């Protein structure tokens, strides 16, 4: 499974989004994420990718699209 596919799997697990989001589609504008579901997404990403995401990184801009999430995860793994 590609990293983007794994990210999308986590997004589906924490949101009511039915279709796969496009890589650069805003997850907040589409209603897939809000302030209550972002913490769930972050926890899901931690479990899926085995990374620790500090609370200080919990800002919408970092997790607004699949592309941004992938870039953020790459930075955590670097």
């Amino acid at each position: 499974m590609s990293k983007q596919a794994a990210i999308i799997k986590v997004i589906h697990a924490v949101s009511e989004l039915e279709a796969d989001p496009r890589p650069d589609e805003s997850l907040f504008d589409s209603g897939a994420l809000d302030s209550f579901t972002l913490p769930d997404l972050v926890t899901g990403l931690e479990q899926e990718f085995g990374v620790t995401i500090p609370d200080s990184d919990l800002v919408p801009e970092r997790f607004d699209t699949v592309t941004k999430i992938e870039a953020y995860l790459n930075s955590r793994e670097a």
Partner: protein
Amino acid sequence: MAYLRAFGCYVPERRVGNEELATRTGRDVATIEKTTGIRERRYAADDVSVADMGLLAANDCLSKAGITAQEVGLILFSTGSAERCFPGPASTLAAKLGLTTTPALDLPVASAGSLIGIALAADLAARYSNVLVIAAEIMSRRISDAEPDTAILFGDGAGAALVSREEGFAHIADTALFTDGNYAESLQLQHGRTVQMKGLEVIMQASRKIPRAIADLLERNQIVPTDVGVYLMHQANVNLIRKVAATLKVPEQQFFCNIERYGNTSSASLLIAASEWWAAGTSRVTAPLVLAAFGAGFNWGAVLALPV
């Protein structure tokens, strides 16, 4: 060892429904209730002070505890909406209670101040015997209708808790307090201004920090979240309370909730909720009790009390 001995509260008579808030802010009634869980809140009369409301909650608490004000060894007064910078309402309250030598200290910590007061009282009861924790807020004077996100949330009220060295209905077994000042500007009230809140940031951080604080506190006391009898949380937003329950995998019915009637009364909300829960006939505690709060600072934490 310190005990929770009694709770008390006071809420003003004036009810302010969502219809009035909708007219004032432009938000529709259904949206206000859906996003906050609030149906109405109470507003204090113009001539009432934070200390006045604290006195009424204190008298309710002392009456239920069956002790006089003269038996109080220390007062801790939480408010984020005091009328002046100093002195705070603690000394005014002490004077209104007829106390002229009893130490009375202010905790100017919005939202989480009453939880901090109980946690401190648990440690200080060994020295001061009866510690009276008060939280009173007049948030209606600190909001602007031009900022609907905060205007629709807040109400006024006061709560009280008596923490005693000698006796009570539950003993305070453990406490956990946290502060992260990097978020000081996320929720603030500057001199002469109205409340400024970055709601998204507050909710996101609270959604993560509160469950973690509770889970860690329970784990180190070898208690699983579902074994807790009741969770008493700062009544900030019903969706946040549901979120914390879901994260802990606990039925939300185990979280006492009265936000629909009072709104967010900042640091008073935890003690108003505790008082209503306690007065509802559940004063005989048979299972662990958890209090938790999150607010300006950010300050957050949890308190664990166990049956005696």
